[in-house]
């Protein structure tokens, strides 16, 4: 019982109201649970499948093949001086992370209803672990991207040092949007039917099959309000060295992502207290 006596806790229980921010100290205290929840999601995801974890690669890879056929070959889409397959795949890697993370996060509270109703922990761990567990899929898809770059003989530019921050940006975006949707989904399941459609529309609103350079300035920079524009163009710029650097787009996107995250967190926290009662 050594560790149980180290800290004497005091918990105060009272009705809360209004808007609250995320309690980071508490989230940090529960970091082991976050780890176990992500670990569970990863371990369980490809259980009872034949090809298992290969699904993580197949999805973006086949989408790339389809895009290359229809947009690259048939529609002769410009691709910023990069071979179209790798141009689209470099965008599909972060996009797949975003799309699957968002869709899992949105349904995460409902699918973990038994936990919510029976035990206390910071509720944000649930959507957060759903997103973090997608990190493995992302890494596998990213390895394939490296292989493709090698085959095409593409060497990353110096801008590659920004890549970790771009990865953070996609996590922030997924979490921000995910918090909004999962909190709403707890109340009304309409959300889970709307999500696939929403993600599809968002995909076409993001320069994955086409370059953002199709837009004239200042519209191209303004386009960064969609945070995924900054992510996707950032990935291409950092890894492939496109001839139209995104520049300020990324700043606009980062700003937009932070606004979404902060508002999502506030909204989630406001709805949080009713989760156990309404799910």
């Amino acid at each position: 019982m050594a560790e149980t006596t180290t800290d004497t806790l005091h918990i105060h229980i009272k009705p809360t109201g209004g808007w609250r921010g995320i309690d980071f100290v508490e989230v940090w205290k529960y970091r082991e649970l976050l780890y176990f929840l992500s670990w569970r999601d990863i371990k369980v995801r490809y259980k009872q499948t034949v090809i298992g974890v290969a699904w993580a690669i197949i999805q973006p890879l086949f989408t790339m093949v389809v895009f290359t056929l229809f947009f690259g070959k048939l529609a002769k889409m410009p691709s910023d001086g990069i071979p179209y397959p790798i141009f689209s795949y470099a965008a599909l890697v972060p996009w797949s992370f975003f799309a699957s993370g968002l869709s899992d996060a949105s349904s995460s509270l409902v699918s973990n209803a038994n936990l919510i109703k029976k035990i206390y922990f910071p509720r944000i761990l649930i959507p957060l672990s759903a997103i973090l567990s997608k990190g493995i899929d992302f890494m596998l898809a990213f390895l394939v991207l490296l292989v493709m770059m090698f085959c095409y003989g593409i060497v990353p530019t110096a801008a590659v040092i920004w890549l970790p921050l771009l990865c953070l940006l996609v996590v922030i975006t997924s979490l921000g949007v995910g918090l909004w949707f999962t909190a709403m989904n707890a109340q009304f399941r309409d959300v889970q039917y709307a999500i696939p459609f929403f993600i599809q529309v968002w995909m076409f609103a993001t320069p994955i099959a086409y370059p953002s350079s199709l837009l004239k300035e200042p519209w191209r920079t303004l386009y960064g309000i969609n945070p995924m524009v900054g992510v996707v163009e950032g990935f291409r710029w950092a890894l492939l060295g496109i001839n139209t650097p995104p520049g300020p787009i990324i700043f606009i996107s980062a700003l937009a992502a932070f606004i979404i995250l902060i508002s999502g967190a506030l909204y989630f926290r406001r709805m949080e207290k009713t989760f156990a009662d309404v799910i």
Partner: protein
Amino acid sequence: MSNIAIKVENISKQYRIGTLKARYSTFRDTLSDAFKTPFRKAAELLRGQAYAASGLTKTKWALKNLSLEVRHGEAVGIIGHNGAGKTTLLKILSRITEPTTGFGDIYGRVGSLLEVGTGFHPELTGRDNIYLNGAILGMKRLEITRKFDEIVDFAGVEEFIDTPVKFYSSGMHMRLAFAVAAHLETEILLVDEVLAVGDVAFQKKCLNKMSSVTHQGRTVLLVSHNMEAIMGLCSRAIWLHQGEKEDEGPSQQIVKRYLSSYVERGVWQVPIAERTDRVGAGSIRFTGFRLQDKDGNPIDCIVAGETVDFVFSYVCKDETVGNVTVWFWIRDDLGRDLLCLWSRKTGQDFEKLPKKGELICRIPRFPLRPNKYIIDLKADVNNVHGDRLPDAALFEVVAGDFYGTGRSVSDLGIFLCDHSWRYSENSSSPNKENK
């Protein structure tokens, strides 16, 4: 810091349980409402007004102005009927849900066991689930690793520890789940009805574990319907009734009061024919119950040791029914099943019965000590539930001259049975007399 572990002041909890139906006067109103509602709800949802958006306007107070105090090292039982607010109280204390009004303070590390096996994933192995479930209950990884062997041993699942739990039998699943929970070593433990798992031997193991927990000087708040467990484990009990505190005091005393009120307020006061809480196809229905002595005279209560007839009147849906089996359980005031009297076991199922009549079960020399007893009544037709009545009736046994010695039977023990005493001079050869 004082000696208080849990202190709750004036806590109330209101649940939204349904929608009050609005009346529409015109078709136009209905139509415009159907169109407007989604927009109104979406707006409320986006403003974060979950309750307004849910449209649940009908409310129910699960707890009303409840105050209580638990000192460190104390084991307190919470008792009450279903819906009395017991689980709601534990949910508020474990911070799963918030009170509507009032506040509380808890001093110390809290572990809550509202269910065993929360978060168990069928695809994961026993080993993985121990870690996952442990983490969910609030244990540190090191702590789980240290207790791992003990947990596996307690559950008795060594062989299958690397098998996904979906291949476990329900008993193994339950044992593993309880084993993890039992090793949660927090200063304060909130436990909800988790003792009622597994077979009798395992339940006993669980009770022993719980009693060692209470003897370690940890604070326990236990919700249970098992009155023996409450009396055995808790020094103090709190009785909740419809969200309010009905009584509080030493557990023996409170359980006794609770049970006698249970007997008084029970559903058996409703005549059997008027009961609506029955289960079954209705091919046969019980309409009445009475007791009579061996000569057929109705009696109010049973004299211990006398012959008694349990008479159940019935009606059938059809003109005749075939293949009827009928049985009833006799339960005591602590909720323990004592006797099952079943026509199938005596080889006396009814092959054919007319539309209505009476089924009579005779018990010679009634063998239970003076007390109040409750019966659960059941009948099946062609192996399909015909009629099932839990808590069908209450009857009382009064002291009688069971042994024909002019001495009244005592309150000791539960059962009475014929027996005799004799003397033998040589204790080393007990069978001497038989030779």
